[in-house]
């Protein structure tokens, strides 16, 4: 069959190379996300797929930017761009090599141990080792995203880049401390999290059953809390001894106790590796906090995080301290909690609710240092803040307020200081301060939208421009705005300015800053014109008639800067003609004609001076009646004398000569 060409599609090639056929879905190839056939114009033999991105789930920008070399047994990203999706609706796609074969989700029988090791464990460990070397994680190892091209072929890890890390993971495949988090706030995590998911995959394939199937996120979390990860995931499945030993280590609760990908390349050695993890201390009697019954400190931390009001009440009434001391028998932990309560009582804060939230966060970090940051009932890892903020912003969730509050009080820094040995405090402090500073700036130069676009560089522009358009970088802003104006939309909103401010480059920086700082009621036509003219020149040199006409209409107040009526009329005619051509730079040049404006100003000054002279003269004429009358009398009398003289001279002459 002949490969389709560029003319067969109604969209420009993504990255100048890939075409998406929205009419040809690739069922199951996207690992749970919609995927379509994509064509590589440079390599006709290459089979590509386009994984569709959801607007509220930002693409992993760091991977898209830096992972640009092929890795064996891994679907790597090749590009990102907008194209018509199913039904012709525009969509955003991450282009990848299409995985060959079917996903492991369709395989229902248990795998033999040797095949698991040679076809699944080692290839994936190799891939994870490569990713770890490049400081990436996969975070999407699950049966429907691992593909087997042939009977004795190694498996391939599918696309994990078109959604936030771990966003589409089934709860069973997520480590406990990621499962606690909001799905969008899990962050990139570490390669140990991928090892955990790989361990779950091994259990699933070895047992031929999906672990913890049918349970929701909360139920899986409860089960893992009660039984521990390995017991919860493996259940009573009969596993080969090697796989059982490996999986036990891979599903260790502490990420530091899990084997590294390099260790997993030698499963026999990895099996023999035993990390002496102290089992969590379990109290003989439970402590009820809200709806959760805690038997150990980890569960108590989760209970306080999930229901902070109940947790704070239990902390205040001393039941937590009593339970820690007498139930759990951990006097040292109890002493640290008491110290936090004393510190909380000593601190004077106007907002009591905020103080309680900070206390809950500190208590959780003390009870369970491995736990993520809990803020007003929502848990997230600091590197998951960007996607979480984006999700909250686009869904207009009440979570947005809580996140803004957390950023505003630098909760991440406080949290990191409580667990200094387990995270890079200095780095997190710098990032946290930067986020706080950006959030404090008045929108659109700052605020939540600007911060979301800054933290998620491939987050599509929202607002009016986001309706039917996918703008992820400056290169498509001008053309998308032209299309939006053609559709009678008004894309010149705060969202668009925040997006521009987050993506600004040196050549448009001054005008974008001016735009972001503009808070008046007038439309800043000149700033928009300059920015869009530069973007048109750089990225989209085709005519944009609708946008040009609209901007020319909006720039009428700018024409008022010209005083001379004839010049202004000529300028209006010139702008109308330029708008018809659809190119913005000449419009900017016409409006920003400095010598012309200076000449106009000089002419105005001269005209004002002339008018002043005329007015003075008219005033003199109007008020000079008496003076003129006096002069008229004087001149009249002098003229009479003159006539008399003439008459006398004539008579004398007549007498003498005549």
């Amino acid at each position, binding site marked *: 069959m002949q490969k389709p060409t560029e003319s067969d599609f109604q969209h420009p090639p993504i990255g100048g190379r890939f075409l998406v056929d929205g009419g040809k879905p690739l069922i199951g190839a996207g690992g749970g996300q919609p995927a379509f056939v994509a064509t590589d114009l440079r390599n006709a033999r290459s089979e590509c797929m386009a994984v569709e991105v959801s607007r509220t789930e930002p693409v992993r920008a760091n991977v898209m930017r830096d992972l640009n070399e092929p890795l064996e047994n891994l679907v790597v990203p090749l590009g990102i761009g907008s194209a018509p999706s199913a039904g012709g609706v525009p969509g955003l796609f991450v282009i990848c090599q299409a995985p060959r074969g079917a996903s492991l989700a369709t395989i229902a029988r248990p795998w033999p141990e040797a095949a698991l090791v040679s076809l699944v464990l080692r290839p994936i460990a190799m891939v994870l080792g490569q990713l770890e070397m490049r400081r990436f994680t996969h975070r999407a190892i699950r049966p429907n995203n691992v593909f087997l091209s042939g009977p004795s072929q190694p498996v391939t890890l599918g696309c994990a880049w078109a959604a936030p890390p771990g966003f589409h993971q089934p709860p069973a495949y997520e480590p406990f401390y990621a499962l606690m988090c909001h799905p969008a706030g899990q962050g990139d995590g570490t390669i140990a999290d991928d090892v955990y998911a790989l361990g779950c995959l091994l259990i699933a394939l070895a047992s031929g059953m999906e672990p913890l199937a049918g349970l929701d996120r909360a139920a899986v979390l409860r089960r893992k809390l009660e039984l521990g990860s390995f017991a919860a995931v493996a259940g009573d499945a009969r596993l080969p001894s090697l796989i059982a030993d490996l999986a036990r280590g891979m599903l260790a609760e502490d990420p530091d106790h899990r084997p590294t990908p390099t260790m997993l390349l030698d499963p026999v050695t990895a099996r023999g590796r035993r990390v002496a993890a102290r089992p969590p201390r379990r109290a003989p009697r439970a402590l009820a906090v809200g709806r959760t019954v805690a038997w150990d400190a980890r569960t108590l931390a989760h209970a306080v995080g999930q229901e902070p009001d109940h947790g704070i009440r239990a902390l205040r009434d001393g039941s937590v301290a009593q339970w820690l001391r007498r139930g759990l028998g951990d006097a040292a932990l109890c002493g640290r909690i008491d110290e936090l309560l004393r510190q909380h009582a000593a601190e004077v804060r106007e907002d009591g609710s905020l103080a309680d939230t900070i206390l809950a966060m500190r208590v959780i970090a003390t009870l369970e240092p491995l736990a993520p940051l809990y803020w007003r009932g929502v848990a997230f890892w600091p590197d998951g803040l960007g996607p979480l903020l984006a999700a909250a912003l686009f869904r207009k969730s009440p979570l947005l307020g809580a996140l803004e509050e957390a950023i505003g009080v630098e909760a991440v820094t406080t949290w990191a200081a409580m667990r200094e040995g387990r995270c890079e405090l200095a780095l997190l402090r710098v990032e946290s301060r930067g986020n706080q500073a950006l959030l404090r700036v008045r929108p659109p130069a700052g605020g939540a939208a600007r911060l979301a676009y800054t933290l998620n560089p491939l987050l599509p522009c929202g607002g009016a421009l986001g309706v039917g358009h996918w703008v992820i970088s400056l290169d498509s802003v001008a053309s998308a705005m032209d299309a939006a104006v053609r559709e009678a939309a008004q894309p010149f909103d705060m969202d668009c300015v925040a997006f521009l401010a987050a993506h600004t480059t040196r050549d448009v920086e001054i005008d974008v800053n001016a735009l972001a700082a503009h808070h008046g009621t007038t439309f800043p036509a000149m700033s928009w014109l300059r920015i869009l003219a530069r973007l048109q020149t750089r990225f989209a040199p085709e005519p944009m008639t609708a946008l040009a006409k609209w901007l020319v209409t909006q720039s009428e107040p700018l024409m008022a800067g010209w005083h001379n009526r004839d010049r202004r009329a000529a300028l209006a005619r010139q702008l109308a003609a330029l708008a018809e051509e659809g190119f913005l730079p000449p419009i900017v040049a016409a409006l920003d004609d400095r010598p012309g404006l200076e000449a106009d100003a000089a002419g105005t000054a001269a005209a*004002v001076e002339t008018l002043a002279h005329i007015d003075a003269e008219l005033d003199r004429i109007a008020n000079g009646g008496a003076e003129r009358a006096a002069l008229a009398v004087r001149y009249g009398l002098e003229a009479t004398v003159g006539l008399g003289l003439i008459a006398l001279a004539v008579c004398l002459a007549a007498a003498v000569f005549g």
Partner: protein
Amino acid sequence: MARGKSATKEKGRGLVWGQGLACGACVAVAPIPCTMIAVLLAPAIFVLLKDRLPGRPVGRAMLLCGSAACVSPIVTLWQMGGEAGFALLSDPGVFGPAWAACAGGWLLTQLLPVLMRGIMESASLSRAARLRAERERLLRAWDFERRQ
């Protein structure tokens, strides 16, 4: 300042005295022609004495006009001799035109200022119209009306 004013007064008084002496000398040398001139220019002399305007323009105008009309009688008196002086003075054809000339001079002093004022007003109106037109043109060309 006061000294300067008194010096001017002194000078004016000296001039009057000088003129009086000159007139006296003329009357002494040629009494009949002087009498005739005085009679012919009597209205002008009367107005000249009564004129309070600076420079006495009305009196001067009447004097000049009357003088123009005196040339012919003086020439006739010169040709006929001094004895014909009183005959000429009694002839209405001699003093009538002289007094009429004086009256004409007076009439001119009344009419010409009015005429001059008319001319000057009309010139002012014309200039104001031109200035207003220019003002309108400037206002329109530089769009000051909209700005105001």
